């Protein structure tokens, strides 16, 4: 039963995608299969989270080959939190796509590709083997390539070429790093590697060199300074349904891998890694937020903010205390939900007004007060105003920083929060508050079907806002799970014992 539970987040999207392929011409059927698969995913990952939360780390071996030889699937609290967040986001994206994505794209395999992408995300979070981590990343990346290029408009193709090139390079670095690790230690099982690096005979210098390969590879994938330039150049090009999922989820999976590897395996040379990560975190935050401040397009502002928030997650890893890592984990969960939601809101605004440019938008508050309220909640969560969810993440990170006297990074992070509020206020002023500049009479009169579509597009946003409010106002369960996850990450004995069954 436990083994099946671990595999369900992989099997449900896989079978869903295969079923969708059988009904290639019937988009309605694909939508139905998609929704069913998402609902099952949601239930399965919720049960998995409960189970892991109660009973500790679970692991299973594919084909019953014992641990260091076979393929290991492991779920601890961190990975199950990632899986459930990805299924919540996936559900919202599906609900949005039904009306929010054009028919042409839907008929060209959007639903199966999105399901496979989700399988890749779950796989990357649940795997216990370095090489499989690479394979799962390739699975999700190739789905991203397809989704970004799907439809083939000019900006999409341009974004896709940058995205594909840089990610191909990142995968190459990752593979090289895996090669180095295997060359030094002769194993790829993460639990066994964790044992091997903690024995005194291993080679610390070579291991930290391998660690740098992983830092660069996942640094590119999660858009850490100075490797983030591809992100604002490509994330805003596809339609909102696609970019919301990619922007919300993908960089955080890279972050997940970084946190996992740098707490489990590359811990031998912390005199080097911790200052390096701290500096990178600071620059990532600052550059991202200034980049966002200079933009005048709804989606581009949000894209640059992804970079800035990656800095906070990295900061948690760089401080390397239980509280800081718990803060990081909480921040990742919060950020996936909020970022996806902000992208979806920008999509609804653009659906009604036909543009993302701040100059041309305006008056949304007057026309659609409810949508404005939803934006208000999400934007203030992002900026970290209490009692919304971003506050708790930032509070935990700042407290952890003060505890170990890392004042510079904490003050940087707090200053960045202020500029984040500035950016969100800018969107609020330009899009929701100010008068609509010149009204195009064609756009003002919406057909009934359009009105209904627009109302349908509110459903996923409300769905996400419920979760955002829940983890903000009733933060206790998620915060305690984040603490548990951080404890499991820092006591690698727990992970090793669960996998190697010692």
């Amino acid at each position, binding site marked *: 039963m436990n083994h099946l539970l671990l595999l369900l987040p992989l099997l449900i999207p896989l079978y869903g995608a295969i079923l969708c392929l059988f009904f290639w011409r019937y988009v309605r059927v694909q939508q139905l299969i998609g929704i069913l698969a998402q609902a099952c995913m949601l239930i399965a990952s919720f049960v998995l989270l409960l189970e892991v939360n109660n009973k500790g780390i679970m692991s299973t071996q594919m084909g019953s080959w014992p641990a260091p030889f076979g393929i290991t699937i492991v779920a601890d609290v961190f990975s199950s939190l990632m899986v459930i967040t990805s299924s919540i986001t996936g559900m919202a994206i599906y609900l949005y796509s039904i009306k929010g994505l054009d028919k042409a794209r839907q008929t060209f395999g959007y639903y199966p590709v999105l399901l496979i992408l989700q399988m890749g995300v779950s796989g990357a979070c649940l795997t216990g083997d370095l*090489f499989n981590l*690479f*394979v799962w990343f*390739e699975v999700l*990346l*190739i789905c991203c*390539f*397809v989704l970004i*290029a799907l439809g*083939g408009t*000019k*900006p999409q*193709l*341009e*974004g*896709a*070429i*940058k995205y*594909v*090139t840089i990610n*191909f*390079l990142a*995968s*190459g670095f990752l*593979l*090289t790093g*895996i*090669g*180095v690790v*295997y*060359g030094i230690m*002769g194993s*790829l099982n993460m639990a066994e590697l964790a044992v091997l690096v903690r024995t005194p005979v291993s080679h610390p210098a070579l291991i930290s060199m391998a660690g740098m390969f992983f830092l660069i590879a996942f640094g590119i994938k999660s858009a850490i300074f100075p490797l983030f330039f591809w992100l*604002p*150049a*490509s994330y*805003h*090009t596809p339609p909102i349904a696609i970019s919301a999922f990619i922007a919300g989820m993908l960089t955080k999976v890279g972050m997940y891998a970084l946190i996992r590897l740098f707490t489990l395996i590359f811990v031998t040379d912390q005199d080097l890694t911790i200052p390096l990560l701290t500096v990178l975190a600071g620059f990532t935050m600052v550059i991202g937020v200034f980049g966002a401040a*200079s*933009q*005048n*397009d709804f989606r*581009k502002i949000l894209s640059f903010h992804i970079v800035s928030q990656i800095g906070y997650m990295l900061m948690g890893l760089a401080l390397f205390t239980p509280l800081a890592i718990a803060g990081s984990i909480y921040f990742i969960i919060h950020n996936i939900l909020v970022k996806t939601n902000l992208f979806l809101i920008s999509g609804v605004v653009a659906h009604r007004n036909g*543009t*993302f*440019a701040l*100059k*041309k938008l305006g008056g949304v508050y007057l026309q659609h007060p409810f949508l404005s309220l939803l934006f208000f909640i999400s934007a203030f969560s992002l900026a970290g105003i209490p009692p919304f969810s971003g506050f708790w993440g930032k509070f935990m990170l700042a407290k952890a920083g003060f505890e170990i006297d890392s004042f510079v990074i904490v003050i940087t992070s707090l200053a960045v929060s202020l500029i984040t509020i500035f950016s969100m206020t800018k969107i609020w002023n330009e899009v929701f508050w100010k008068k609509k500049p010149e009204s195009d009479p064609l756009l003002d009169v919406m057909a009934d079907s359009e009105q209904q579509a627009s109302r349908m597009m509110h459903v996923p946003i409300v769905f996400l806002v419920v979760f955002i409010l829940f983890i903000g106002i009733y933060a206790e369960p998620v915060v305690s799970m984040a603490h548990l996850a951080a404890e499991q990450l820092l006591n690698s004995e727990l992970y090793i014992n669960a996998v190697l069954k010692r």
Partner: protein
Amino acid sequence: MELLLPFLIGILFSASLYLILHRHFFKLILGLILFGLATNLFLFVIGRLTRGGSAIISQSERVATEPFADPVPQALLLTAIVIGFGIQAFAIVLIKRVYQSFETTDLDDMSTTDQIEENH
């Protein structure tokens, strides 16, 4: 021979990066392919080379006799080659589509998504 391989990998890596940094599409494709080859070769060599000893256990024995080549890097390599091939195929088709719709071979013409738009 074994001394030659690291240099070969180095040359492949540097040549591929040089080609990727070119602004011509075709050189980008070549660079990507060479980069894939270089990583694959690196993965193969770093798993230590043992010549003439396959890891096949003969029927009379329980374990393979030394010296035998480690089969794990070879298995990894096969997977990596297949994945790399898929991505390269996708990249080539993508670049062809880009060429068709932009009618240029110059990557410098593709900077519109980076620009700060004043009037959209």
